[in-house]
């Protein structure tokens, strides 16, 4: 069977699996729909959280990003895992004890304010939509490249699948399909990684292969890559080119942003007990870490393979994968010096006589993971498997995000603000309608992506870091924090972060260089500063306004202690 036949077969089998799981686990009550009846075992929740969290960006783009950024790529590795420590230690157990269904529920109750709740709803919807558009785009790319259907059809098929299990199954359906999707995506990620590690270093564990010696030269792989980089005029792979402060700020913004993302937080509402919330954050990080510690190895293997395969090779003799990706415009070659060879070089490259050499090859970073098995000449079924894994990653994250949008509309806005008297059955109908509406809108955004999806994702993290994270932390750890402080903090954090990102990305992109940045911190890392501003403003404003009412003090006392988290103490829906 060829690559396309394998891809069709594997994608069809996995889709059938997801639909089967969804039918088996559909939701009957709002409690099922929003939080899977709070009956998800911690290990399963950990797996579902891992699939929920690892998006098309983690699966498809991250290793490629690291391959191109070298050490600087560490911001994603530490940033997207370190947030789980914050979640497990500072957020998950307390939010589980609080009970209820959504992040705006907590913000609204803790700060006894509909305004705070509405601010939280708007943030949750904005963050989730920006994210979900990227997922749908990922689905479209995989379909168009491997199944050779137009991107629009790819998105439409992806929408149909998500529609089916998110609308029917709610959180319960999503949780168990995410468990299946995790298994598919991790298998699809590890198989080529292990193949590559054996081929290049002889060690079947990619995490160790990364530190191992290259089988051909006997040199350490990382040293060899640093050497190749120097020769070709790139910055050394194991050093970075970003400033230390910027690396610090980006890592911090991603960590804190992770801990503030509503679709991740909401997963910790689904387990039976507080102690389950703590341990399921650990399981989630374990399942995530399997991929995240493999990614830097995949990056190094891919980078080495790429340099060996294309550098100074005649364009006439490029392998088949090169031409296929060229057809999708994700690889472009321009023979500047007319020698028919591919010069793939960095900014400081010079030839033997000391003349600068121009780079002739541009490669989209997103294709590294997808092209990797072909570059290494792995069997066709591995290529098909990677396509199915990319789809699993994109669909599982999309479903989790759509649920946040749906619950924000039906639960937080409709029941929480506009129609408090709505019946259980009515709310469930509205939850399904808003999930359906969200799927269709996400699909539209996937087909007609706003031209700024990449920056918008940084925006989502910055926003989550500057808004939700401080508001929730202060709500748990400071009894004195009141409505005025929290709202002022959230608004100043969001306004500062949004203004900085909008200024440098849209209003004055020409000025978007390190010299003009505040303390040399890039828009990607500014959410960290926004978070600090939020904390400071909230502290000052709360000290100079009235203390929160007494029942809020009791609420804070209650969430700090695990005992009594059972259904008896829950506020009924």
């Amino acid at each position, binding site marked *: 069977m060829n690559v396309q036949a394998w891809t069709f077969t594997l994608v069809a089998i996995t889709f059938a699996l997801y639909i089967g799981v969804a039918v088996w686990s559909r939701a009957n009550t709002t409690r099922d729909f929003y939080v899977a009846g709070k009956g998800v075992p911690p290990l399963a929740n950990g797996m579902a959280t891992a699939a929920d969290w690892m998006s098309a960006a983690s699966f498809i783009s991250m290793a490629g990003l690291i391959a191109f950024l070298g050490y600087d790529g560490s911001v994603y590795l530490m940033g997207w895992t370190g947030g789980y420590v914050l979640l*497990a*230690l500072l957020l998950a157990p307390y939010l589980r004890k609080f009970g209820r269904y959504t992040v705006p529920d907590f913000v609204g109750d803790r700060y006894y304010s509909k305004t705070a709740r509405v601010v939280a709803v708007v943030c949750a919807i904005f963050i989730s939509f920006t994210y979900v558009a990227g997922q749908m785009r990922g689905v479209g790319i995989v379909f168009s490249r491997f199944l050779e259907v137009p991107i629009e059809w790819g998105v439409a098929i992806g929408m149909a699948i998500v529609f089916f299990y998110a609308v029917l199954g709610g959180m319960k359906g999503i949780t168990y399909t995410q468990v299946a999707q995790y298994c598919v995506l991790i298998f699809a990620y590890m198989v080529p990684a292990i193949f590559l590690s054996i081929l290049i270093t002889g060690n079947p564990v990619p995490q160790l292969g990364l530190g191992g010696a290259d089988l051909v030269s006997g040199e350490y792989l990382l*040293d060899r890559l640093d050497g190749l980089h120097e020769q070709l005029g790139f910055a050394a792979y194991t050093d970075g080119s970003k400033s230390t402060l910027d690396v*610090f700020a980006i890592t911090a913004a991603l960590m804190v942003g992770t801990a503030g993302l509503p679709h991740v937080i909401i997963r910790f509402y689904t387990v039976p007990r507080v*102690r389950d919330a703590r341990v399921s954050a650990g399981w989630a990080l374990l399942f995530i870490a399997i991929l995240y*510690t493999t990614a830097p190895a995949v990056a190094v293997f891919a980078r080495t393979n790429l340099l060996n395969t294309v550098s100074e090779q005649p364009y006439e003799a490029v392998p088949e994968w090169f031409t296929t990706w060229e057809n999708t415009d994700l690889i472009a070659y321009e023979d500047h010096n007319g020698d028919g060879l591919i010069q793939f070089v960095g900014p400081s490259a010079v030839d033997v006589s000391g003349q600068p050499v121009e780079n002739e090859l541009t490669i989209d970073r997103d294709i590294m993971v997808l092209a990797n098995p072909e570059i290494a000449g792995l069997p066709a079924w591995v290529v098909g498997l990677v396509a199915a894994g990319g789809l699993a990653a994109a669909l599982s994250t999309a479903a989790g995000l759509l649920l946040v949008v749906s619950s924000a509309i039906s639960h937080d806005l409709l029941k929480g603000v506009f129609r408090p008297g709505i019946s259980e059955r009515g709310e469930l109908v509205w939850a399904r309608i808003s999930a359906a509406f969200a799927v269709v809108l996400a699909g539209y955004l996937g087909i007609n992506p706003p031209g700024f999806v990449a920056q918008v994702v940084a925006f989502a993290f910055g926003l989550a870091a500057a808004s939700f994270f401080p508001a929730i932390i202060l709500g748990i750890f400071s009894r004195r924090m009141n409505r005025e402080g929290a709202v002022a903090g959230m608004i100043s954090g969001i306004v500062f972060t949004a203004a900085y990102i909008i200024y440098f990305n849209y209003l004055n992109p020409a000025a978007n260089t390190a010299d003009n940045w505040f303390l040399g911190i890039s828009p990607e890392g500014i959410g960290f500063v926004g978070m600090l501003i939020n904390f400071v403003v909230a502290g000052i404003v709360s000290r100079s306004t009235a203390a929160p009412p007494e029942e809020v003090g009791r609420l804070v006392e209650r969430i700090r202690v*695990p*005992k009594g988290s059972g259904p008896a103490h829950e506020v009924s829906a």
Partner: protein
Amino acid sequence: MPSPPSVRPGYWAANLRYLGILLSIWFLVSFGCGILFADALNGFRFPGTGFKVGFWFAQQGAIYAFLVLIFVYVRLMNRLDREYGVEEE
């Protein structure tokens, strides 16, 4: 809303102490070894591997440490909950 269960004083303080210690380690392995001191640590290598120490912390070690931290916290808190009689049924 039910009134909060009466808990012997010390439970919350012990929790905060654990958080302080564990989050200091969290900061040290990632922001410390992986970022602030990465250049200095890159002068050293793990023997028998190609890993420079700073680079390894940034791309591998910090993640392993995060995992250990969470599971240590889970154990500590489960013990503390039992000590103070606030564990769930």
